[in-house]
Every structure is written in C-alpha cells, then in structure tokens.
C-alpha cells in the first residue's frame, strides 16, 4: 500500500482546527520523536486516514469519517506545539 505525508491532512484537519496544524510539531508517544505533522506518514483508505510516526511507525492519529461526523483519535501524540 502506498502512502502520502502529513501535507495531505491540511484539508481534513481544517474541519477540526482553526489553524493549520500540519506545521505544528507533535511528539510521538511511542518513541518520543518530535516532528512537524507534515512530515508524518499518511495512509489513506477511502475517506479515512491513518497517520504514522516517520521514525518508529507507531500510529499517531486516525481520522475516520462517519455519515454525520469526523472522528479524530490522537492517542499516539503526547503533545503538539502549534505556532502562534
């Protein structure tokens, strides 16, 4: 399965956040790596996304689109630093 990168999330995440979080630095809860979200690996299935750490491949985030909502699960990110 091919993959993309975090740049692709700018559109879907604009439905959730008021700033562009693809430029935010996230800390991987698995390996502690800190990287800009745009550099994460993104796997796409239909309208759903799985976002993985580019260093350890742990899941950082999933986006699952339902009929009436977008479920954002972020347990793989211990924190994000968002440029202000």
């Amino acid at each position, binding site marked *: 399965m*091919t*993959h*993309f*990168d*975090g*740049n*692709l999330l*700018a*559109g879907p995440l*604009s439905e959730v956040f008021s700033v*562009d979080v*693809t*430029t935010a630095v996230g800390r991987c809860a698995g390996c502690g790596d800190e990287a*800009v979200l*745009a*550099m994460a690996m993104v796997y*796409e299935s239909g*309208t759903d996304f799985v976002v993985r750490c580019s260093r350890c491949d742990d899941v950082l985030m999933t986006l699952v689109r339902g009929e009436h909502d977008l479920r954002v699960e972020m347990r793989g990110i211990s924190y994000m630093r968002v440029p202000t």
Partner: protein
Amino acid sequence: MASVNTETPTGRSIMIDVPGWGGNLAGQHLDLRLSAPDGYQAVRSYSIASASTGDRLELAVDRLPEGEVSPYLVDDLLPGDQLELRGPLGGWFVWRPEQTTPVQLIGGGSGIVPLVAMARAHAASGSTARFQLLYSVRTPEDVFFKDELAALASPYFAVTWVYTRRTPEGWPTAAGRVNREVLAAATIPASENPAVFVCGPTGFVESVADSLVALGHPAASVKTERFGGK
C-alpha cells in the same frame, strides 16, 4: 473551469476561476471533490501551479491509469464545468519571497507542479535568492511547463533535466534515475545550506530525500511532498 492546455500525452493544465480565492502561497494545494450522480464522492489533493493574488488558479494533472478522479480531469472536464474545491491548504511545503537562502527544487514527473509555483513566485517577486531546479521525467514528451521553464531561466534560476527512460536525441548523458551521484553533481551542495523541496511519487521522494541526507543535508532542511503511487 475556465480553460485547459495540453501539456503531455497524459497530462494537462487547467485554469480555474474561484470567486473570492484571493491567491495562495507558492507550494500550497487544494482538495477537489467530485460527486457521482449516485452520491459517491471522491476527494483528491492537487498542488497549485500558480502563485498569484487573484481569483484564477492553475492546476496540472497527470492521468493515473487506475485513477478515479484524474481521468475525469484530464479527459472529460470542459470549460464552464463547475468544480467543488477547498483551499488554499498547507503551510509547510511553501516558499515565501522573503526567504533569501538558496533553494534547490527537485521534482519527479507531475511533482513539478508546486515547484513551478515557487519558480513563478521567485521570478514575479524579483527575488535574487539562488534557485535551482532538478526535474526528473521519463521522456522528453513528459515535460510539464516546458516553454515556461525555459523562459524562466535567469542568473538566479537554472534547470537541470534528468531523463529516466529516454533522452532527447544527442543528449550528453544516458537515461537513468536520480541517484546520489546525480544529486551530488547537479544540486546545490549541503555546504551552502540550501532549503530543499522534493516533490513527486512517494518512492522518488523517499529515495531522493535519503540520498540528500547521506550527502550531508540536515533532514530539517529537506521538505518533502509525496504524491503516492510507486
């Protein structure tokens, strides 16, 4: 959609008028949504080839053989047709005219699109930052924006061509992939601390980015955008 221009045997550029667009940064993309009569929807991201302040923007799309959206955009879309899009998107893979460091652009196939936007913004702003583009294509017929790239050549912007399957007649080097040796010979060296932008199919981007880091570029100086595919 306002007009189209055939660029290659499988690709074309598309001019779109978006009331209220108001321009975009060089390198940004948009999400385009197509809806079938039965309600099925497909969303795809496309890099924007233009970097202007107006309400007209340009995309360039290559037809993917198994694609759901790109064959429609390349073969069926007509001037006057309506499109549903969201953007401009993305603040990471962008170049701003106030940046003065040297810039190395590396594009594979239709990965040239956001890099053309950067080259256009560079020329339009009168920037004297050193810009170099390495453009990898399969054959001479696969080049997007051929005439424009030639016209953009200046003391501050140079293009190196790499043909991976077939070269033009009389070309001094054999066809071959962009590897570490090519990058070492034809790109701005790490010692000059360039900002590097790499865009193209995922395999191309990752191979180039790995080689750049091996050549001494800090990983943080190499910005990448993966188009998927092989």
